């Protein structure tokens, strides 16, 4: 994926989160916890894209790749769990 494609993906994902977070969740019965979790999952996906493609972690030595992937899994996973159950 080249930088322009990553940028367009990030912009579209932002617009999706903004749409979802400004009262456009599909159906009245959408759980706030679910909407919150989806919005934050999109955010951590975007964060991972920036690390990987803009900060060039995908080409980095294995140690740095593992640290960054580990950070995303631990920070993202714990924040998503907190959002789902809060």
């Amino acid at each position, binding site marked *: 994926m080249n930088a322009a494609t990553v940028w367009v993906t990030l912009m579209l994902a*932002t617009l999706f989160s903004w749409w979802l977070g400004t009262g456009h969740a599909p159906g009245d019965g959408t759980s706030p916890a679910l909407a919150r979790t989806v919005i934050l999952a999109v955010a951590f996906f975007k964060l991972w894209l920036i690390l990987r493609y803009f*900060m*060039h972690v995908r*080409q980095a030595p294995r140690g740095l790749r593992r640290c960054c992937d580990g950070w995303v899994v631990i920070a993202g996973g714990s*924040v998503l769990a907190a959002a789902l159950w809060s």
Partner: protein
Amino acid sequence: MPGESATAQTSSGERMPGESGAWVFFLADMTVFALFFHVFLYYRADDPALFAASQDRLNPHLGAANTLLLLTSSWCVVVGMRAAARLDASVSVRWLVGGLACGVGFCAVKIYEYADKIGQGLTPRTNEFFTYYFVFTGVHFLHVLIGCGVLLWMISQARRLADGRRNLSHMETGACFWHMVDLLWIVLFPLIYLCP
């Protein structure tokens, strides 16, 4: 190759983006912000009605505009660094200036937002939500200001590429700092402005 790192490639095909020591700082700073996210969610769960009512006083459109500005800025910096790797000084400077302009745009929107909130009597002492809003976005804003300074320095370094003077590893460290500022906002924005 689009998105290619500016620093030298090792024989194994791996590249260290910027200086390795800087990554200790980046990961530590990101971890501090991850703790901010947890603190916010923890206290939000204590009083969801107060947090929801306070969130309604924020303008999510300004937050979204700032997110688009930072993403565009990051992309400009990626393209500028790619030009720097080719020693194309004029193209590199042009894109880095574009990145800085988006960063300055972010600052302008944020200052307007802070002035608007304070004008409405909403300060860090209003309630718990606004304490976290001002502290977390304020710490991030400080990062943006430092990042704008880093981009100014990168522009000065890019100008020197025309004289054959390279400082690509330091420039790439600066670029990574700016991308980190972007990715911290990527979570802060939906957490504070959007999450129902």
